[in-house]
């Protein structure tokens, strides 16, 4: 069943379009991430789902009901904001319980539910503290607690970890994923961090300039990007792109990049293309394209080696530590089965 659905939803601020014909269907209990760089319209889309922004056109549905004209409370959504948005004058307990107070629950009920949520988030000892007396991670937990206590139909997360340091971000990410697995509440998450999106989501909607470029599982997004934009946005180190020409010969289909020919799947038609090579599909060894090492970056599990070759710059991601001196001559072998071919004009994957 579809818990949240956007049908041709558009939003403009004045004459400036922010979202154009967004179509999304989030299944019941699914964890969907809106991923994109700043200004791509992902937060505006989330705000429209929450009821904090009106859609200029299109329909927003929840459990099959059109909710465009309903307030956030009527939509039964809870939201975790980027800057936590905790009420600075209220204690942790008051912050978590505020939504229940607005629903006129009895004080004893509020207390019981707040304590239950606080215990599940390890906040019990902090209930009487003010937000200013908490660390960033604790504040984020309070913000999540405030959303949890409502037992809402849909959770919305607006870049909730962007203000946390790298280590804490990874920990909080795991906590949210665990929480989702435990509660199974439909969740829509916004982030610009592709690694975060890949690790936490059931499906990802990659947005660019107000348009959903691709909506799919993390594997689909990574391995079969719909466009050059998606391919460039996903993956670290990023994919390398080279202009090439596809030619069919008696020996097969090839792509020529400068003086180098790479074997291609025979389904590709002749023409001008762009070839995408992900660093993990490049192997350094005895065979392949001659190249010169420009830079070596060991990151622990892998070493990223940046090479200069006839086609330009190419990064090879090698497992473990690789000892290579800048300037040394190597050979790079590209796995032809993993090449991504894009139409040079439209940017769509062929």
């Amino acid at each position, binding site marked *: 069943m579809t818990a949240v659905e956007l049908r041709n939803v558009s939003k403009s601020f004045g004459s400036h379009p922010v979202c154009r014909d967004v179509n999304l269907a989030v299944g019941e209990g699914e964890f969907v991430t809106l991923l994109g760089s700043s200004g791509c319209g992902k937060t505006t889309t989330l705000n429209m789902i929450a009821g904090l922004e009106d859609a200029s056109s299109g329909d927003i549905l929840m459990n099959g009901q059109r909710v465009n004209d309903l307030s956030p409370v009527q939509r039964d959504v809870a939201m975790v*904001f980027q800057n936590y*948005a*905790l009420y600075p004058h209220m204690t942790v307990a008051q912050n978590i319980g*505020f*939504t229940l107070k607005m629903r006129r629950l009895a004080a004893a009920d509020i207390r019981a539910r707040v304590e239950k949520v606080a215990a599940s988030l390890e906040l019990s000892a902090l209930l009487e503290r003010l937000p200013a007396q908490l660390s960033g991670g604790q504040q984020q937990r309070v913000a999540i607690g405030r959303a949890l206590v409502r037992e809402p139909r849909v959770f919305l997360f607006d870049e909730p970890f962007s203000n946390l340091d790298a280590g804490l971000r990874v920990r909080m990410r795991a906590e949210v994923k665990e929480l989702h697995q435990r509660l199974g509440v439909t969740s829509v998450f916004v982030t610009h961090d592709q690694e975060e999106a890949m690790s936490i989501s059931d499906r990802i909607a990659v947005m660019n300039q107000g348009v959903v470029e691709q909506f799919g599982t993390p594997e689909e997004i990574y391995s079969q990007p719909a466009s050059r934009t998606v391919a460039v946005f996903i993956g670290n180190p990023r994919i390398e792109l080279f202009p090439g020409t596809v030619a069919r010969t008696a020996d097969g289909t090839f792509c020529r990049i400068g003086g180098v020919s790479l074997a291609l799947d025979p389904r590709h038609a002749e023409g001008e293309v762009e070839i995408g090579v992900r660093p993990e599909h490049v192997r350094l060894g005895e065979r392949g394209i001659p190249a010169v090492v420009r830079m070596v970056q060991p990151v622990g599990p892998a070493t990223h080696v940046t090479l200069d070759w006839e086609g330009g710059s190419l990064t090879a991601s090698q497992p473990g530590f690789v000892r290579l001196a800048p300037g040394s001559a190597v050979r790079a072998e590209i796995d032809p089965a993993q090449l991504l071919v894009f139409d040079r004009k439209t940017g769509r994957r062929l």
Partner: protein
Amino acid sequence: MSFARRQHGGPLLRGLVVLGLVVFVVWSAGPVVWLIVSSLLEQQALISQPPDVSPSAFTLDNFVQVIAAAAALGKGILNSLMVALFSTAVSLALGAPAAYALARLPVPRANNIAFLILATQMLPGIAIAIPLFIAISKLGLIDSVFSLGFVYLSFNLPIVVWILRGFFLGIPVGIERAAAVDGAGVFATFWHIVLPISIPPLAAAAVFAFVEAWNEFFFALILTRQSAQTVPLVIAQFAGQYQTVFGQMMAAAVISVAPVIVLAIVFRNQIVRGFADGMTKG
């Protein structure tokens, strides 16, 4: 680990800054210091040229005499207290929701309205004094604490709206959005969230409105006769037709500014934060 405050410029620049600050403090505090000193001097010592500030010239007689003739000053303080508290309380009660609406709600042409509100303060007092006098005398409200309080309210309200609007504009929108998602409507958000976090600017606006009403002389002079006279008018009466009792006048002034100074000291942190927030976030 602590970080030393960064020093800007060389010793010459710092010396100039310190000199500038000393001049500013002397310039600002000088009249107040002279007010206190002259309230403690005998009349003869005060009017001699140059004034005699030898230890023998100091006396508490001025205060004794002002307090002995306390009826007029006491009544004046009471009147001032009533008009200042009334205009302050009502300007906050009306100004805070108005400022919030202009800052946050979808009010058409909110900026223009805010500017119009401020524009009412651009007229010189003398320009509205005569029409105001005619209107109030036709209503039969001359010499009434009530009417004076309303007049001060009309002066204070625009300033309160401007101070608070600047602060409200600076409150992160996320907090109000969180309140909306939590189920709070506009009024609940204003009451439970916005007002409690706005105590510093509310205190700053309140002190500003109170001091303005407490010190106002011109409109009190033309709109009161006897029973509604405020402190500044009572003090002015120490200047007689044939003699001005400077020492007593200064002693009365010292007594009259005391509540304002106490107010400023008690709320100094909120005042500074309130005005600073209004300036930086507005």
